[in-house]
């Protein structure tokens, strides 16, 4: 189970600035359990965006967004809607955002932060990695995680150590994460994103919150507690 929480709406709106038409992506896996990106939250987001004057081109809630083949397959019927959209808002963990970025040549904004549970990972089989940093930066980096794709985890751009697009550490096998980010943002015509001055990360958000230190069944337990209260 990967735990996510929605970013505050003002932060989401800021990332959508200048874009009018948005396609929404949710996930029936962990994000639904966490009440961050299931069908109900996607519909709620649709309404909130429309209230803010945005047009929602369409939406889909994929069974498991952490399966790239399934993502591709699930987005196929929505091709026209996605084409008409300025960007996609992905309401899942960092892996879902990166998986979507991998299969769609559009800007993919994260709507959530992925919360650290202290070591456990989901069933992800791709090369993308999410550190569960609790402060998702994928919006600035074209849907490629700088913390995991860059050997040094730099957030403000490349160091001087890349040669032919490869990292000087393991140049035969490791791409320079910032080269990938640069190429991706260039392709999307969003190099302005790379110029954003990012303040140092709040690494306290990478400590698992106390309710997650002992269990990853937190969402289920919360539902049970809510049921009891009702």
């Amino acid at each position, binding site marked *: 189970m990967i735990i996510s929480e929605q970013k505050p709406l003002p932060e989401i709106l800021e990332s959508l600035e200048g874009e009018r038409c948005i396609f929404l992506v949710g996930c029936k896996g962990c994000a639904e359990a966490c009440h961050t990106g299931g069908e109900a939250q996607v519909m709620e987001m649709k309404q909130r965006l429309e209230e803010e004057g945005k047009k929602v081109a369409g939406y889909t809630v994929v069974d498991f967004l952490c399966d790239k083949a399934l993502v591709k397959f699930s987005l196929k019927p929505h091709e026209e809607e996605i084409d008409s959209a300025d960007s996609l808002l992905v309401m899942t963990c960092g892996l879902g955002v990166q998986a979507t970025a991998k299969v769609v040549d559009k800007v993919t904004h994260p709507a959530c932060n992925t919360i650290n549970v202290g070591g456990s990972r989901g069933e992800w089989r791709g090369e993308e990695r999410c550190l569960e940093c609790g402060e998702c930066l994928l919006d600035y980096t074209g849907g490629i995680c700088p913390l995991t794709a860059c050997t*040094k985890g730099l957030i403000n751009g490349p160091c*001087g150590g*890349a040669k*032919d697009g490869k990292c*000087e*550490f393991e140049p035969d096998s490791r791409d320079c994460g910032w080269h990938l980010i640069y190429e991706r943002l260039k392709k999307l015509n969003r*190099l302005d994103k790379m*110029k954003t*001055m990012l303040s*140092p990360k709040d690494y306290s958000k990478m400590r698992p919150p106390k309710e997650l230190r002992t269990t990853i069944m937190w969402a289920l337990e919360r539902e049970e507690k809510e049921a009891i209260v009702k």
Partner: protein
Amino acid sequence: MNIAELVKKGKFVVSAEVGPPKGVDIEEMLADAELMRGRVDGINATDQQSSVMRVGSLATCCLLKEKELNPILQMTCRDRNRIALQSDLLSAYIMGVENVLCLTGDYVALGDHPQAKSVFDLDSVSLLMAAKELEQGKDLAGNELKGSPKFCLGAIVTPGADPVEPQIIKMEKKVKAGAQFFQTQAVYEPKKFEEFMKAVAYLEVPVLVGIVMLRSAGMARFMNKNVAGVHVPDNLIDEMDKAESKAQKSIEIAARLIKEMKPFCQGVHIMAIGWEKKVPEVLDAAGL
């Protein structure tokens, strides 16, 4: 002596570096620094260069300062978190160290302690932001300081990177974060450097072009194969190959490069990497 101020006064600034030793025998390093007295405007003290554990750059800068040589403190983000980096910035200021060069730092796995935990809590851009915050009387967490420091902040850029645009984007961020001067990675192609300087002219920031002295044709080939953003053209490799005195040829090439690039930039930064004793000869040959 503030490097940016010197540029403002119209001086073509010359800096060179000394490498702190691995061990406590500092005589040779100090002798190298002494040779540069009166010849350079600033002396960089490298910070655990190539991720190899050595004497620290701050202690070295304090020694240089004591001897009234003008130190440039190199600080990398590899080994210290934001608490230690900010503390060292305050320490540098109280010891009279004014010029600080903010770098990301090489990756730990490339050095002599590959088992070490790498930090990179800050990056070069946010280290500059931190120094700026301190100057304004606050630390990164927003707490007030009892007395604030003042620095001349520098940063680095790799003009020969391919593609160069990501480097320029980051250079712009460094300027916005407070960088007042730049030293570059080694450059051997004056034409390309001229193009680079045209591309970054809009930033209006002084650039000290980096010169790494060639030791041999083999070293040049090694750098071409292994060092990012550095390209030694074939004609220079040939010259080194054919030269009877490698040292003489190396000095001649370095001086020629400086002369050719001087019109496009505001200074030169010489990295002798073991040949520190030859720096005065390079400067003589370059007419500096």
